[in-house]
């Protein structure tokens, strides 16, 4: 378990944040300038906070009261930087082995075949002899992840590792990060300001705003909170449903995903039946009906009750539905809310078009082949 509570002043900016992480992938989410990077730098030992305490498992890394400050190189925290920071004068192989060299004295170091395993996990076998200058942005980040992994980290810190990449490269890396989260037992702290990334990757979400923690908790619970929409970004805001692949419809090229709230039909996803999928349903893609709709082209209708109506922002209102215990959010006009007579407790039907689902909103286990993602495969 990682436990962080720090105060730090940088010029006019004041960081005063605390959170705990119990493994999996913890995302630090917030706008630029919210203090995300300062916070992970404090965890990694790259900055010494003015006050505070950071512990990882049973080790105290920083404790200003007791004068404890473990230097970065003794923390065994793998750091994947936004710009990769590969060593330009070394080959990919030498970059990968750099940290391993210093980890060799530790007991748990040098498991046989681990280099091959990491190289395989990240799909960088063909790059080993190359120099960083000859790699694409996505390849660089994969090598940077491999380099951090091979140093045998107790915790992996990733500071907006996809920020400098275009959409295609992001889609290339995301499955590897998912694999990392699911296949290795290394806890990850992941910094991002992209809702889509966080929704897809995070097990725990810590929302930072102006140097403070605005909210923290399981990703689905936080993403479903409409009071946080101003912070999580209204346009992209949406709830997250945990589903499993239930059925493939070859004739129409559709896949049925089963959630507690009901079935969702989405464009075909090449995953075996039973595979877990995480689906983000953007509030702007959800329509509300007060009666079971008929004669409608949309394939997905989930029954639920209105749980909460948010504060109006001009003509727009967000409402939260309770669909068999799962949260779903919808973005409506104030006019619709009034004319439908929506109020907490009212039985309604959420309508979602199948084509609202794309690779930004669907994420599951790693795809069958590395480098491919859900969107490019349904054709």
């Amino acid at each position, binding site marked *: 378990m990682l436990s962080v509570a720090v105060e730090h002043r940088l010029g006019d900016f004041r960081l005063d944040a605390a959170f705990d992480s119990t493994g999996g992938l913890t995302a630090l989410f917030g706008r630029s300038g919210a203090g995300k990077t300062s916070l992970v730098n404090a965890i990694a030992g790259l900055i010494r906070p003015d006050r505070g305490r950071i512990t990882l498992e049973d080790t105290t890394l920083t404790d200003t009261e007791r004068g404890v400050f473990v230097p970065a190189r003794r923390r065994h925290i793998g750091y994947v930087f936004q710009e990769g920071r590969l060593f330009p004068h070394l080959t990919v192989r*030498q970059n990968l082995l750099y*940290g391993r060299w*210093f980890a060799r004295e530790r007991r748990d170091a040098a498991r046989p075949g681990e280099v091959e395993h990491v190289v395989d996990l990240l799909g960088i076998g063909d790059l080993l002899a190359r120099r960083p200058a000859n790699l694409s942005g996505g390849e660089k980040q994969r090598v940077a992840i491999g380099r951090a992994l091979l140093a045998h980290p107790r915790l992996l810190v990733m500071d907006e590792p996809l920020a400098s990449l275009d959409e295609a490269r992001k889609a290339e890396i995301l499955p590897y990060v998912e694999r990392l989260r699911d296949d290795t037992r290394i806890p990850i702290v992941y910094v991002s300001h992209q809702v889509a990334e966080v929704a897809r990757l995070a097990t725990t979400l810590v929302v930072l705003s102006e140097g403070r923690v605005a909210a923290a908790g399981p990703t689905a619970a936080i993403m479903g909170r409409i009071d946080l929409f101003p912070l999580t970004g209204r346009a992209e805001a949406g709830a997250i449903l945990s589903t499993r692949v239930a059925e493939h419809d070859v004739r129409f090229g559709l896949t049925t995903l089963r959630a507690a709230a009901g079935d969702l039909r989405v464009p075909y996803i090449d995953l075996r039946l039973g595979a877990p999928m995480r689906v983000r349903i953007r509030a702007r893609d959800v329509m509300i009906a007060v009666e079971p709709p008929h004669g409608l082209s949309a394939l997905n209708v989930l029954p639920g009750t209105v749980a909460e109506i948010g504060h109006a922002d001009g003509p727009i209102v967000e409402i939260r539905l309770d669909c068999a215990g799962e949260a779903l959010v919808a973005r409506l006009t104030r006019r619709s809310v009034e004319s439908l007579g929506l109020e907490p407790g009212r039985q309604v039907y959420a309508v979602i078009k199948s084509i609202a689902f794309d690779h930004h909103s669907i994420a599951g286990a790693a795809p069958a082949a590395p480098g491919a993602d859900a969107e490019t495969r349904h054709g």
Partner: protein
Amino acid sequence: MTPLFAFTPDELTAIRLSLWVAFWAMLASLPVGIAAALVLARGRFWGKALLDATVHLPLVMPPVVTGYLLLLLFGRNGPLGRFLAESFGIVFAFRWTGAALACAVMGFPLMVRSIRLSLDAVDRRLEAAAGTLGASAPWIFATITLPGILAGMILAFARALGEFGATITFVSNIPGETQTIPTAIYMLLQEPGGDLAALRLTLVSIAISLAALIAAEPLMARAARRALGL
């Protein structure tokens, strides 16, 4: 008429001696040069400007003055020269060691300058990245910082090959002991019919300088690999 590349034994000796002197000049001044460059590039302290000026002094002083000062300090009767001769048996006056000392002193500002430039060019963020991978400060220096300054060392070596004024003032121009390529060229130009030999040594001088420049690039990569033990 002798062919252009028929070197006389004296000329060969001058070439060998030049390389030898420049090599030791570079090697001996390297630790001091790195330390001075590190302090000047990254340190913040009172008197930094004065240290900076002192380091650059040999660059702006007439080489003859530097050579004469070396003679006063390190000559047989100089305070340092006598001390080193009596305590350690190290004699500089009219020896190749003296030529190396003169080259080292004269090349020092350039060495510090180029190392400092490379240190400024070394990405501090890469050093931080190496730290998170478990590397200690000396290791970071050897594997990340140093490869960037190796080019500076080679340039300092090439510069030492060309030292003339301080060398001839301090240790004179003794064939086989202190006569390097520049002093040999100078002497040949004083003799009637020495033009061809002077041209020969000039070409050699150009070739060595070029080779040093070309060698800088792959050496950087190799040094880094070796430091890692890969």
